[in-house]
């Protein structure tokens, strides 16, 4: 069974540009979560989508947005990139609950903002 996949692996942008990151969940999973892991920080929760709707978002500005498609894949968009947006962005998927075995993570997209 294929795991969570993310693309691209690496992304280099300049300040002010927009970045689009993509995630395909494990087959059968309806929930997709996005996290940011900046240098020296833990995984910071960004967004949670389930059944095509945004269920919750973390303490990030509105220029971080996303969506979930009917096939449950998801896209994270970061507008007006700033240098501090440079980080590893992780996507995870699960069934409706985070308990038990928790979420299954993808390998991440490394975003570098110059």
């Amino acid at each position, binding site marked *: 069974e294929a795991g*969570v996949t993310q693309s691209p692996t690496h992304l280099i942008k300049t300040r002010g540009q927009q970045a689009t990151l993509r995630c395909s969940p494990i087959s059968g999973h309806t929930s997709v979560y996005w996290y940011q892991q900046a240098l020296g920080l833990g*995984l910071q929760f960004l967004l*949670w989508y389930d059944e095509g709707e945004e269920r*919750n978002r973390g303490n990030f500005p509105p220029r971080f947005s996303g969506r979930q498609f009917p096939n449950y894949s998801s896209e994270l968009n970061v507008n007006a990139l700033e240098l501090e947006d440079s980080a590893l962005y992780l996507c995870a998927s699960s069934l409706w609950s985070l*308990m*038990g075995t*928790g*979420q*299954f993570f993808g*390998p991440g997209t490394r975003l570098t903002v110059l």
Partner: protein
Amino acid sequence: DQQVKQNSPSLSVQEGRISILNCDYTNSMFDYFLWYKKYPAEGPTFLISISSIKDKNEDGRFTVFLNKSAKHLSLHIVPSQPGDSAVYFCAASRTAGGYQKVTFGTGTKLQVIP
């Protein structure tokens, strides 16, 4: 406000000895705790979890202990193996608004020396 703290950014242990990774939390509403392991260039993978109604959960070489009065949990790995070298994230979840919200710690990098 870092609600889940891993105060040791790194830990080195000899192969065959015990590795103890610690995690402290501040929110008494957390009802589930999880440990994830992360290798470089890979996403975190679920390792072991514990419900807040328990004080110990064991899975092979891995045991998680929960001390609710101290708001402290620890992961014990016995015996430690070189393949255990990775970053370990502690996470805590709570039910809010009908869904689980997960908060991650900053991670502890474990190095097991052969």
